[in-house]
């Protein structure tokens, strides 16, 4: 063999590993975006004075929090499309991003709720007393502080999403876990392959950790809750 990378349409295991890494990262980051947006929204809903919205937020959180991830992926891929035929045409990438994203959004919602509730009640009243509407109070008073407080637990969730993305192999996404299972069967070199895959998972999750740390430092406001 000439080099580590294939040419003219040939694929080496290294090419394949890097492509698998790409799939892992794509699934993870798309799911992370879904999780942060939906999770923040649901978390906020759980703290508003409206009972119906609180119920919606709670129901969402408990539903996605209490079913194992692999079962959820199976439901999204096999069961829901059987009941709703148009969903059969949806690519499995989209389904797994939604599945993983919603699962994680329940955890994010819990943390965002905790973050908002950790603020002194007086802040909310102060905002309203100033004549701000409820959305304005959230936008300018509560969320800027609550979101800073929840950065550390959100970092953990972001790292978890990279690790949990390994379930995507169950719905035909050619990500790293699938690569590991397949390549070790073909080459009988399981130890080497799993070492490489383990290394890449570690690098990916650790990179997220470092980036989050930088964000946390940049956003820190001296004297505020949670700042040191």
């Amino acid at each position: 063999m000439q080099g580590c990378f294939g040419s003219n349409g040939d694929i080496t295991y290294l090419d394949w590993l890097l492509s698998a890494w790409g799939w892992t990262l794509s699934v993870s980051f798309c799911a992370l975006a879904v999780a942060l947006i939906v999770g923040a929204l649901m978390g906020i809903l759980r703290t508003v004075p409206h009972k119906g919205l609180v119920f919606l937020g709670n129901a969402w959180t408990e539903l996605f929090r209490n079913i194992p991830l692999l079962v959820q992926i199976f439901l999204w891929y096999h069961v829901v499309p059987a009941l709703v035929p148009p969903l059969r045409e949806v690519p499995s990438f989209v389904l797994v991003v939604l599945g993983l994203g919603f699962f994680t959004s329940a955890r994010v919602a819990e943390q965002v709720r905790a973050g908002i509730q950790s603020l002194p009640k007086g802040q909310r009243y102060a905002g309203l007393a100033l004549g701000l509407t409820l959305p304005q109070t959230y936008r300018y008073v509560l969320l800027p502080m609550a979101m800073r407080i929840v950065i550390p637990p959100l970092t953990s969730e972001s790292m978890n999403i990279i690790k949990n993305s390994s379930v995507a192999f169950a719905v035909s996404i050619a990500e790293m876990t699938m690569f590991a299972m397949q390549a070790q069967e073909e080459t009988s070199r399981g130890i080497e392959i799993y070492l490489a895959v383990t290394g890449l998972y570690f690098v990916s999750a650790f990179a997220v950790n470092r980036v989050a740390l930088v964000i946390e430092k940049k956003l820190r406001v001296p004297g505020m809750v949670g700042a040191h």
Partner: protein
Amino acid sequence: MSQTRFAFTTRRTALALAVFSAVLGTAAQAETTDTLKKIKDSGTITLGVRESSGALAYTLGNGKYVGFHTEMAERVAQDIRKKLGMSSITVKYQPVTSQNRIPLVQNGTVDLECGSTTNNRAREKDVAFAVTTYVEEVRIAVKANSGINSIKDLAGKTVATTTGTTSVQTLRKHERATGLDFKELYGKDHADSFLLLESGRADAFVMDGQILAGNISKSKNPKDFKIVGEVLSVEPIACMLRKDDPAFKTAVDDSIKAMMKNGELAKLYDKWFMQPIPPANVAVGLPMSQATKEAWAHPNDKPMEDYAAKK
């Protein structure tokens, strides 16, 4: 590394080294193996068994392992007991997976692995194989009314197969060699892959013939499915044992060859592939292939690559 050098390293380094060498230890098996002596001294033989390799080897739960190859391995164990002049032998069952079977044979946890392991050149570097006892044919299962009758009909269709099997490789090679374009779907296990076919997400399921036959026989309406077209690849399946232990290999081979000759193995085949088998008491219904008959008529331990070359 000598004992004195170890004394200079800190305990933590020693621990790290121990873990590291445990990981890589399988690659460096220094001492020569004498499995027969080990069996005689310990009075025990450890069989590597599978939990779900179709009728070849599977579990009924509660630590009970059955199947064509599992029962054959039990008979080999009894033949070895006789050969060694032992009055009794304890047969231990160690479930193995595709991922751990080779390391477990290499490091001595398992003495003889009879499941669904394909004999190929890559594996021959790490382990030895007994004579081939089953020749697996990779085939295509489709819905009976699909109109698919050969590999050519797969153009533009969706084909399912199972992650972590050699069928994936076969499929990829075929796609590249024939220029046929089809979409691939990967089930995480055979049940998932079959569900893809059953639910219509996939038009075909490419897999070992006996797994296809088994899944079809267990489905709600077996008549809805059929196995079609040419054989995509041929893979010799054999029991796996440690490398460089000719005495043990001869003992295993002799036992299997005797069973091939006196018709015992044919009886076992009939029992596991043609008659109803537990737990569902449904027959797989897969008559012995020409390739398997050939392998029994001329016992050999040729790897998969030799079969491919013959075509």
